[in-house]
């Protein structure tokens, strides 16, 4: 039985690994957008975080220093976004786009000057990367049918950040729906006037939301370059920030649904690389390129309102002007 299930479990295992940066970025986008700030800068924060993590990790030899720097840099990018669109009421899409292009330019420019390897960082050794974490009893349970596979192969043996991503979902859900901060954050994305008239600063609330988003994107970036990969490669975020954005919309701005969408999109990616060159009945060669664009197509179909309605926070995209 295990032989039959193993390929399937391995695909799910890959799904989890591929979905990790998506989940973290989707949670980041969720916090930001729920506070009323459109966040297409997920991609740029992810990319700059990935670069910072690899660069610091290779210089210091300490992967946690890398993670810390990834968070710092990603938050700095988030603050640029915030300074433009919260403080100066600039267009949120334009400033998000600016962050993304800035990240593309900065990572290669600095990387090229610092490491002289065409914009990459040197390949990281095992010490400079996150190692797998073997969950307790994983080895003992390995031979138990089904449970052994699920626990030892699927759940155990991932990098630390995979588990952080899984924990981030209930954490964000709790923060948004069970705390006073979350209530205010959601309110500020729907009717900022009400929050303002209650004497709470709209600006500061939104800044906190995007700082949290920056932290999560920084962690996701560190995952790309120091856990999943072994070093920074130019443009290594490769649109993952945008897929995460799609997943968040697909999940209708709700944490658990967004995670579901991330897992679905991660699964599509894992399955497509597994199906490479495989002949399918009727279709012939698996159309791998087309499977990879399914996330985007599905999101458009959802936005078109064909299955359920995705309603964004009401005040999203509008700079808040305090009335006098």
């Amino acid at each position, binding site marked *: 039985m295990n032989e039959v299930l193993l390929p399937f479990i391995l695909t799910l295992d890959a799904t989890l690994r591929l979905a990790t940066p998506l989940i973290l970025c989707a949670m980041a986008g969720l916090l930001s957008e729920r506070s009323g700030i*459109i966040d*297409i800068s997920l991609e740029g924060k992810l990319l700059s975080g990935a670069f910072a993590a690899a660069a610091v990790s290779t210089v210091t030899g300490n992967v946690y220093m890398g993670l810390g720097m990834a968070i710092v840099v990603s938050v700095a990018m988030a603050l*640029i976004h915030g*300074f*433009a*669109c919260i403080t*100066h*009421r*600039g*267009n949120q*899409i*334009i*400033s998000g*786009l*600016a*962050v*993304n*292009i*800035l*990240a*593309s*330019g*900065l990572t*290669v*420019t*600095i990387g*090229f*000057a610092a490491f*002289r390897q065409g*914009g990459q960082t040197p390949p990281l050794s095992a010490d400079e990367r996150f190692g797998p974490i073997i969950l307790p009893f994983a080895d003992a349970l390995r031979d138990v049918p089904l449970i052994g596979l699920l626990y030892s192969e699927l759940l155990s043996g991932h990098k630390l950040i995979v588990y952080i991503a899984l924990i981030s979902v209930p954490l964000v859900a709790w923060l948004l729906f069970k705390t006073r901060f979350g209530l205010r954050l959601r309110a500020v994305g729907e009717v900022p006037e009400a929050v303002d008239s209650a004497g709470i600063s709209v600006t500061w609330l939104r800044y906190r939301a995007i700082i949290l988003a920056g932290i999560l994107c920084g962690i996701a970036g560190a995952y790309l370059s120091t856990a999943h990969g072994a070093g920074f490669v*130019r443009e290594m975020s490769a*649109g993952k920030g*945008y897929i995460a*954005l*799609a997943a968040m*919309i697909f999940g209708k701005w709700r944490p658990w649904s967004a995670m579901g969408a991330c897992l679905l999109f991660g699964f599509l990616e894992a399955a497509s690389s597994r199906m490479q060159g495989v002949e399918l009945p009727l279709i012939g060669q698996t*159309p791998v*390129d*087309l499977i*990879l*664009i399914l996330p*985007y*197509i599905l*999101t*458009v179909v959802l*936005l*078109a*309102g064909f299955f359920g309605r*995705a309603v*964004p926070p009401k005040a999203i995209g509008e700079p808040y002007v305090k009335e006098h």
Partner: protein
Amino acid sequence: MSSTPPLPRWADIGLLPVLNLMIAMVVSGLVIAAIGENPFDAVAVMVKGAFFYDGSLGYTLYYTTNFIFTGLAVAVAYHAMLFNIGGEGQAYIGGLGAGLVCLALDQVMPGFVTIPLAIAAAAVFGAAWALIPAYLQAYRGSHIVITTIMFNFIAAGVMVSLLGGVLMQPGQSSPASRTFEPSSFIPFIHEILNGIGIEAARTPLNLSFVLALAACVFVWVLIWRSRFGYSLRTLGQSEPAAAYAGIPVGKTIVVTMLISGALAGMMGVNEVVGVNHRLVLNFTAGYGFTGIAVALMGRNHPVGIVLASLLFGALYQGGAELDFEFQTITREMVLLIQGLIILFSGALSYMLNPPLARLFARLSVGPRREVQA
């Protein structure tokens, strides 16, 4: 806002963009200095590389051609308060349309049939790629920014699939189509110049540049001198007002986006029919996104867009020169400058407005202040 008088028109149109550009340049210079190079040397290299070497002006204008098309695409949509960031995908699919016409007709038709049809196909395909996002924005209320982002990725996937599949040249393994017959090439400017006896270096600049300038005139007439342009701008000012005035809002959104997509699609003409002469992967190379910076800098006006396109053309061509002259600076420096320009002249464009307005209010003499009060 109410406390400060508005800026004089010349300052708003002329001074503010220049100041924003200067801030972006100063920050870029600081980055170069931080890397340990001399920013002034870098500027000198870029200016020389963009204008003074043999043939460099041709390269600069070739990039300019792309940016005029994608910049106009963003600007047309922006006047209706629509943010089309799908220029990249629309240009990609537009190029596909032009390429398909060339592949189908180049062996049986002369160039004067193929080329106009290819141009038309680029426009139609680009427009078609904008249709679904436009329709969804107009009638289903989904955000055009998100859908056009998705369509950029879908375009990329479709092109990879086509160029690695049915369109791939038989017997080759690289994802590209066969090269068209020379009869369907858009003439290069250096060929024309050499034909009339003027020495000119080989550059990718071709007659698409003239098409781009014609598109500028078309956009100016469309937006400021046509009935449709009036409804488009009214819609951009206020959707309720437009609806109240009897302007068909949905239809205007869709038609505006179709025109925008068609303009972006025509960028594919320059790349596919003018320069590459075959379909290759990623010939759009981010020019669609640069169009956003161009439109922002050019204040969404055709004249401004030509100037901004020239600036970005010079940046791209001069940036390529950085690779040769410096060991520590690459052409990606240009991306950084581009990002900073989008940040300062786009997202932070209001930052300098109040202090500048206050400065002008202080400088202006008594009578004008009374008018304000």
